[in-house]
């Protein structure tokens, strides 16, 4: 039982840390992606169809 508990705790720590880290990176750098999407949609550069 304790081996399973250690296994799940390790997974939980990995899950929690990566969740926080990716969230911060995505929020900061996603704004650039949003601006780029609007720019290309406005100019009609997108890959239609």
């Amino acid at each position, binding site marked *: 039982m304790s081996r399973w508990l250690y296994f799940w705790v390790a997974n939980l720590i990995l899950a929690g840390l990566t969740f926080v880290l990716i969230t911060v990176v995505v929020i900061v750098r996603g704004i650039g992606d949003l601006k780029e*999407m609007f720019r290309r949609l406005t100019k009609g550069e997108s890959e239609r169809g």
Partner: protein
Amino acid sequence: MNFTPLDWAIVGIYLLLSVTVGVLARKYVGSVADYLVAGRELGTYLGIATLAATEIGTITFMYNAEFGYRYGFAAFLPALISGVVMIVVGRTGIVIARFREMKLMTVPEFFEKKYSRGLRLLTGILVAVGGILNMGVFLKIEGEFLTIVSGINIKYLVAVMTAILLLELTYTVVGGMVAVVVTDFVQYALLSIATILVSIFAVYHAGWANMVEKVAHTLGSAGFNPLENPKFGWSFLFWQILLWFSVHTCWQTTAMRMFSTRSPETSKKVMTWTGFIFLGRGMLPMIWGIAALTLFGTGPLLAGSPLPVVNGHTLAPIDAMPAMLAQILGPGIKGIVVAGMLAATMSVNSSYLLGWSAVISQDIVLPLRQIMRKPQLSSRRQIFVNRLANLFVSLFLMFWGLYYTPPGAVYLYLNITGTIFLAGAFACVLGGLYWKKASTTGGYLAMILGATGAIVPFFFFHWSENVTGFAAFGLAAGGLLLGSFLKPRQFDANPAGGAA
């Protein structure tokens, strides 16, 4: 009422901001490709935000927390499988990179390119039925969450459901995928903050040592070892691996994000990094469920776990987590968390509304018109049909949500309704992309047997979800092989096709 004026103000500001941003995105919609796949302009970070927001809703928090409440730490198994499989799909690019190269807008569209128009139509119908049945329980459960946490009287549940739906519909119908992507980004930020806050509060209030002890005392070693838990075991493990491979490659709302990325390489990156988020998407709410079990699990036993008792009232296991949030979160924090949960709800529902209505308009209405030799619809008319389909799906959701209650854990109901089309679709997609001999007859057999294998045992014979799910995937694979050998592919009959 559990809400203070500060909480209501936070929620109100969020709702106003979200709907306004969504409606403003309308000006960027020029063609049906803009409407359904945002002009294929998603970069990596925006792609991760919208994919994560699409697949993390209040419904996700509710069913994962229920799973944690019922099965303890052993419930982590499907969360681990979903994340690891997603990372594998992203790293290898299996199916998703090829899908992106083909410039699809819906999954069933692939079936016309590789098999036949008739199979696309059948797949479209099964995808729509399975997807809408799947989404059918969302509204009621989300409404329950909001009424329990905010303290609104349960008699207003229908009004809460209707309000949620109308707000989502407003910007989804008007702005399509562009609106959904923009609102997803805002909603992703909010739901992530809420997820982190609730995880900290839940563990702090329940106490880690108490949580471990409660699971050990209530569920024994089956609360830690999934292979010992009668609900799981090896059949569950293999079914979940198959299911999550099919979800990450063939699930319409996930696939639409892959179709919307700038390139196949971007789609692989989006899938890989979202895989890590998927670990937390499952495990963090499961921890909330275990905390709720620790705090409230004192009632009579139901299928091995005690029912939650809150203020003298016995609740269903799925309602334990929101009842816990109503008690442990203070003013202001509660408003932020509920705004985050509303964000999660709206991002999922708007994406799902768009996803299933896209299938109805592109894969049922358009092929039917072609079969009936009617003229092709213009881009504007296609968008109009899609908006009508949106309204139709919404109405169905209201009625189904009110009158149907899943018999067991909601997570398993969602898995089975998804399997209705995923079993056949996954076999056909793998066959169509990677096996030259996969034929249209095999495709028909795979779709029909896969759907039958999911619907009949679960809804009519009440077999266990593990056996049902496993049988559906097995029947679908068998159907593809049998049909392809009985009536081999005619290579010159469908110039658009041809397995690569």
